[in-house]
Structure formats: structure tokens, C-alpha cells
């Protein structure tokens, strides 16, 4: 957490696009029922992302950020609310090949754990080739060229292309996963704790890579993370979630220097550093559990972890 790569080179907000927002989320809500009790995982979440923009979704485990990520790519169906990508709604359920491919083109995701998100039986190159074939990208030779291009974009070569995931390091796998997501040429890329499983130096490489890709392609990034340092490095806006609710949403620089909400201040204080007092943070944490308007029991909101069981 305190191992941030060099501070914030990116906060140059892209100009507001003439065609309206790339991604618009409004009134998103998702509840789970576990053993008869209803747990609200995400409550009335709204945000928008302009082309080339990067939004950080920040919060602790159980704050609903992974559920949000899964709703954005259609792995979970929202109870209420709407997700618009380039003005077109993302259907809650897709029927048929065309609809599936259209949704894939809208949003792609990179998962937290590159050890689990790649198919262990299939080489990196074949995996990406499969994505290209599904999306109808030319003949075998054209696809081979595109695979090489995509892998080069994330800094991988022919050796890695021929390798099985288990023959690669964590950082190489996560690069491969990013290349796989980019192969679809999505409008928006969701990164669900995509660097949390990587060690620090590799984290920095992957974050730089993402910044480059964003600058070069104008893709929109939704960066789900518990790590404020990581969010500061990649994103220009951040949205802080706590128990499914939006606590605050403002440019990253302001959020870090002048946090408005007590929960954000707590998150900032929770980052280990010299003179850091875990006990004091624990007390502030408990005080927060009785937020105004909060009806749930303190423990309930941590229950709705999505099936992917986020570690962070």
C-alpha cells in the first residue's frame, strides 16, 4: 500500500468529448439474499466516464466495488439502474451471438488474479487468437499478425505467445490478460484489482502500461482498487464506496489532498506509514459503523462478496 510507484504523472483530464460520455452508469443497485437476509451490495451508484477517462472505484472489501465491476461486464445482473456505453444500454441478459459480441465490444475486464484468470491448458497466443476468431478478425495470417501486435503492446514477445500461463511470471500473465481484453477492442476496460496480486516493481510496470494504452487508444478505464496510491497513479477521478454507497466522487488530486467524507479520511489514514496508529484507526472505523441513515448491522454489508471472492 505504501509502495506506490512514482507519484501521479497522469492527472491531465481528457477534454470532454463532443459525443457525450463513453460510459454512463445511473442508479445501479444490486442486492443479494443470503440465508433470508437481504444485503445491499451496491446502492444507487451513478457515475460517468468520458472517452479516454479513468475512474477509480475505491473502497474496502465488501464495499461493492467488485460487484460493480461484475455488473459492468454483465457477469451480474443489476436489480435497478442502467449502464450505457456510448449511449447504448447494456442489456441485462443477452440472447444470441450478435448480442454477446456487442456486449463484449462494449466492456472488457481484467481480473485480480492472473493465475486463475487464464486457461491453464491453452497458450497465450492461442487464447488471444481465439478471441480474435470469435470476433471475426480476418484469416489465420491476419490474426497471427494481430496477436503479435497485441502482445507487443503489452511488452510480450513470441516466446510468451507460445507459452502456457504456468510458464510465465505473474506480471507476464497479467500483461497477457490485458492483451486478451484489448483483443476485443472494447470501449471501456474494467480492471478489478488488476495489480493487487503483483509485486511492487511489476505493479509499476503494469500501471505504466495501462497509462500508455489509455493515452494511445482513448479507451476508458474503470480501475477498481482498495489501494489509493494505485488509483492516484492511473486515474483522474475517484469514487469512494462504502457498503455499496457512494461516499464521495471527485478528482483524485482533490480527494487525496482535501477528502470531504470521514470514510475517505479514514481510508487515507489507514495507509501504513511512520507514526501510524492502527488502534486509533480501529476506533475511527467503529465510529463510522453508525453512519447516519445506516440501517444494516455492522457485519452484514461485508457478507456480499461476489463469487470471485476478492481478497482485497
Amino acid at each position: 500500500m505504501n509502495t506506490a510507484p512514482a507519484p501521479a504523472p497522469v492527472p491531465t483530464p481528457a477534454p470532454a468529448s463532443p459525443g457525450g460520455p463513453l460510459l454512463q452508469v445511473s442508479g445501479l443497485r444490486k442486492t443479494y439474499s443470503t440465508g433470508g437476509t437481504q444485503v445491499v451490495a451496491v446502492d444507487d451508484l451513478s457515475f460517468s466516464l468520458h472517452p479516454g477517462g479513468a475512474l477509480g472505484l475505491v473502497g474496502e472489501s465488501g464495499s461493492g466495488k467488485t460487484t460493480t465491476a461484475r455488473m459492468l461486464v454483465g457477469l451480474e445482473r443489476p436489480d435497478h439502474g442502467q449502464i450505457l456505453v456510448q449511449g447504448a444500454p447494456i442489456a441485462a441478459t443477452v440472447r444470441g451471438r450478435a448480442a454477446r459480441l456487442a456486449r463484449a465490444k462494449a466492456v472488457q475486464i481484467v481480473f485480480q488474479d492472473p493465475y486463475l484468470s487464464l486457461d491453464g491448458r491453452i497458450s497465450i497466443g492461442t487464447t488471444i487468437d481465439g478471441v480474435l476468431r470469435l470476433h471475426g478478425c480476418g484469416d489465420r495470417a491476419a490474426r497471427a499478425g494481430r496477436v503479435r501486435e497485441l502482445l507487443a503492446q503489452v511488452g510480450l514477445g513470441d516466446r510468451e505467445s507460445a507459452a502456457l500461463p504456468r510458464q510465465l511470471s505473474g506480471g507476464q500473465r497479467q500483461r497477457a490478460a490485458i492483451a486478451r481484453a484489448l483483443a476485443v477492442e472494447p470501449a471501456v476496460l474494467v480492471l478489478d484489482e488488476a495489480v493487487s496480486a503483483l509485486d511492487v516493481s511489476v505493479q509499476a510496470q503494469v500501471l505504466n502500461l495501462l497509462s500508455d494504452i489509455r493515452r494511445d487508444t482513448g479507451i476508458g478505464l474503470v480501475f477498481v482498487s482498495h489501494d489509493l496510491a494505485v488509483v492516484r497513479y492511473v486515474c483522474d477521478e475517484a469514487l469512494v464506496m462504502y457498503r455499496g454507497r457512494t461516499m464521495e466522487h471527485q478528482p483524485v488530486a482533490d480527494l487525496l489532498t482535501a477528502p470531504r467524507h470521514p470514510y475517505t479520511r479514514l481510508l487515507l489514514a489507514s495507509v501504513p506509514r511512520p507514526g501510524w496508529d492502527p488502534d486509533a484507526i480501529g476506533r475511527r472505523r467503529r465510529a463510522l459503523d453508525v453512519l447516519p441513515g445506516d440501517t444494516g448491522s455492522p457485519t452484514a454489508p461485508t457478507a456480499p462478496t461476489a463469487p470471485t471472492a476478492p481478497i482485497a
Partner: protein
Amino acid sequence: MNAPSSTMADRRADPPAPSPSRLRLPLVWLRRAGGGWLMRGCLLLLALFVLIALFAPWIAPQDPTFGELGNGFAGPGPDHWLGTDLGGHDTFSALIEGTRTSLAGPLAVVLFSTTLGVAVGLFTAWRGGWVDTAVGRVLDILFAFPALLLAILAVALFGKGLTAPVLAMAIAYMPYTARLVRGLTAQEKTRPYIAAYQVQGHSAVFIAFRRLLPNITPTVLAQSTVNFGYALLDLAALSFLGLGVQPPTPDWGSMINQGQAAVLQGQPLSAIVPAVAVVLVVVAFNVVGENLGDRLAGRES
């Protein structure tokens, strides 16, 4: 006996296209079978029996259906390596020729039950919900039926022979595979690589059969190997009861049946020979199957 034709049908129904890695799998297993002399010996034994079954007519020195009258209970010797039975049939030749039916029956059972079980398990676990629950209940009921009892029932309804018992036992063995595949699929389905395939826009059928299934195939094969041994035992028992393969077609189970009277007359050899063959093959299949299962479990953890 229509086992060979059904075998072909099953191969075609078995979903995934052969990829080089899967074709190489048996070889890899054989190479890594160095786990112990027992495993290696069992694999060799099974390979030997498979070869015998394939080339039986060329190996058997005599026609096992030809009874040399007046030469019953001949002892082992140059003419009859393992002696003859009451009717003067050459026991060694009967053993060799009997390998075919004794292995083809269980093979058909395993191919049928595995294909069916994989289809049911994969479908229910993927669908989830009430379909999963309902099929689960049906499987529970099938579990309560001993395979042998179902086979005897099938014989009572459809007559003696190999076809009816093989089909009945395929149904009786199916729940074992189905339950295994269901559990594995439910577990595998939660892995992010499956979610990634979904997000990419692949169809459920493609993901389930072409991507998820190959990842659980080794475990399923281990289970099927164990099932093979049990199916052989059950079918031999059925033949022993006179309900399975009918004479003069040679079969280990019916050889034991015909030899049991001879045992009482002090001539146990014609019953002991096929009995030893059954025991060897069943034990070998069990050892190999369990070994594979253990190895896979070790690799997972």
C-alpha cells in the same frame, strides 16, 4: 453383442475435438507412472490384456468352442497349456478368446455411462437452479439401485445376452460420473478464466464443452478407470449366474460358472484360471484408477 458399434457412436458424441495435449496425455501418464512398481506392473498387465483381446483369434492355439470329447479335465501339458474343462474345451484358448467379451462389455458400460454422466453433470451444474435440484434427486434414486440388480432386471425384461445388461449397467454407473462432473463443474465454473470466456462473448455451449470439460477430463478419466474394474466384476458375476454372455461364446464369468461343478469333482483348474484373470484385471484397474485420482488430487492442492 453390439458393443463395438455403440463404442463408435460414443466417440462421436464425446464433445471436444482432439487436441495434441490430450492425445499425448496417456503417454505422459505412462512415463510418469514411475510412482511405484505396483502402478507400473498394473499398467503393463492391462496393456497385455488389451493386446490379448485385440489379437485373440491369432493367439489362441485352438478353437475354444471345439470340445474334444473323451479328453475332459486333461491336465496342463503341451497340447493344452492350462488343461481342458469337462467338455474337453481348451482352457487357455477359452481364456484368450474370453478376454474379448470380458473387456468389451465393461468398455461399453464405461463409454456409455461416462458420456451420459458428463453430459448430465455438465448440463445440471452449468444450468444450476431447479434443473440441478431435480436431476440431483433423480440421481439419488439411481444411486440406490445396485448396478447388478438393475442388470438382472434388464435381463428379465429383455432377455439374456450382453446388450441388455450393458445398457442397464451404463445407466446404473452414470450417476457416479454425473455427480463427479457436477461437483467439478460447479467448482470450475467459479474460476475467473471461465468468467473471462463469458465476457469475451463465447457461447455457454462452447465454454462448457470446449474449455471447461477439458480441464476436468483427467479426473473424470480416473473415475472411469475405477468404474471399468467394477463393471467387469459385475458383468462377470452376471455371466456366472448364466444371465450374461451365453455359451458357446467364451467369457470369463461363464467359464467360472461351467467350472464350478468341476471344482466339486476335484478338478478346480478350469474355474481357477478365469477367476484369477478377473481378479487380476479388476485389481489392476482399481490400482491404476486410484493412483491417477491420488495424483490428480495431489497436483490440485
